[in-house]
């Protein structure tokens, strides 16, 4: 199936290729082919659910040249059968309020018991929508409608690595200590983002994520084993 893309420049050293529809699989595929075919000229990428940003060194190649090269590749590229490659990930999560700092207040705000919040959060299979903004932050789509809640009014200065949070229609994983405004409901002992490795993260956009509940004891055991 042919896809329609538009190319817009972002200054003199980057451009954004947008897809007519939001489709993480298409963007993932686009990234794959361009990083392979233009690896000597493109120095980096950023993926969003409907676009791919391409970065170049303007002293080596102009944005117009790279845009022409990309167009030539896109004209000949078929996007058939790209959906099959998505992986399924199972992520342990501990909902203990000592990790899920906001779960008690959310219970009041949403009018749901903590047990119900956990049940609804565990029930869904999520799709990785975007990775980025901050190192390794994972945006997951597919949050249950009954869990929709706005961001906190005042963002926290520091959210611990592994924290799993919800905001609007998404759930997200903070993979490095960072500031943030999402409502924290639990934490995973899994080090999803390993800055000692390249690539530092194995999951990619389009992959599926399902959570499974663990106790605080399991969480601590897991952390100890990791050391």
């Amino acid at each position, binding site marked *: 199936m042919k896809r329609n893309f538009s190319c817009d420049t972002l200054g003199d050293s980057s451009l954004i290729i947008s897809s007519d529809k939001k489709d993480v699989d298409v963007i993932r595929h686009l*990234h794959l082919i361009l990083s392979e075919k233009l690896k000597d000229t493109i120095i980096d990428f950023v993926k969003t659910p409907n676009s791919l940003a391409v970065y170049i060194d303007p002293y080596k190649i102009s944005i117009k040249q790279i845009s022409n090269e990309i167009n030539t590749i896109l004209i000949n590229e078929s996007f058939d059968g790209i959906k099959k490659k998505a992986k399924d990930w199972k992520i342990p999560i501990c909902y203990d309020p000592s990790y899920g700092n906001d779960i008690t207040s959310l219970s009041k705000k949403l009018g749901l018991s903590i047990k119900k919040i956990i049940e609804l959060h565990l029930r869904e299979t999520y799709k990785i929508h975007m990775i980025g*903004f901050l190192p390794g932050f994972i945006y997951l789509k597919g949050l249950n409608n009954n869990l929709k809640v706005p961001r906190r009014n005042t963002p926290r200065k520091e959210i611990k690595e592994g924290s799993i949070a919800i905001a609007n229609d998404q759930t997200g994983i903070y993979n490095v200590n960072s500031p943030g405004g999402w409502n924290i409901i639990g934490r995973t002992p899994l080090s999803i*983002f390993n800055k000692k490795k390249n690539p530092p*993260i194995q999951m990619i956009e389009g992959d599926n994520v399902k959570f499974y509940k663990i106790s605080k004891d399991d969480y601590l055991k897991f952390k100890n084993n990791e050391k």
Partner: protein
Amino acid sequence: MIISNLKIMKNSIEFLRAGSLSTIQDLRRNNSRVYGIPRSGPMDHRSHMLSNWLLGKDLRSETIEMTLIGPKIKFNFNTNISLCGANSECLINNKKVDMNKTLSIKEGDILDIKKIKKGNWIYLSISAEIVAEKYFDSLSTYERSEIGGIKGVSIRNGDKINLLTSQDVDQKKIPKDIIYDFDEKIIRVIKGPEYYLFDDINYFTNNEFKISPTSDRMGIRLKNVGNNKKFEINLESSPVVEGTIQVPPDGNPIVLMRDCQTTGGYPRIGIISSVDISKISQIRANKSVKFRFISLDESNRLIDYNKKKYKSRLGVNLVS
């Protein structure tokens, strides 16, 4: 193995004073933004490259970036160094030395970089490769995620840094017409994707904006000095690049710099031309900048002009 280790450990420098914010930076980090990791690198690319040029090094090689009050460094080996960028009083063994030229260092010498007088960022290149943490092929320090440099953070008092064998170099000087004076305040900008959503572009081109002291390696915060205008433009998270000018609802623009995030939700009114990003990095807090919109073609011509100028004057190919 042990012998080669000894050889490596032989050359070192010691920070008797770390300075306000001294970090190792280079222009080698690529393909990290796709994971949300910023590229980092020197705030002022051109001064970084000039200091490397003086020592005949690859222009992308690591330098030590310093600001406000510089460090005091003891060398335990013979080598050559160079200092480029913000004007500062630099001393070797209490004797004043010039910036923008090759300097020789003898074992035991102490380099003291005093308070910076003009500009923000000064670069020290050393004619020996620094041994530090490599991440995505780069030594650039990104403190927020503790990546690169020395344990991922800025240099601390008493830190010792190891270096490989010192290379012999020719004595060079930066030609006068290549040295920047940091007095310009006009910043050339290419229209951004949300340019057309702003009902009052004159607000950005007629006003001067003051550099806020809260600016850092992630972003330069600007403040309108006249009547502030508010803009309510909502947007989904979209990719950004160094030099992007974002406008939050309060109307005070933020210029994204080397340690910036990879996506942003504020409207992108413009992107600073590649040739002027280094320039804005050197404008001091509380001084003003003025934006001038140019076309992409004009920006490309400026890049081309710089490319040819450096090729003919210094014999090098610029990089970004």
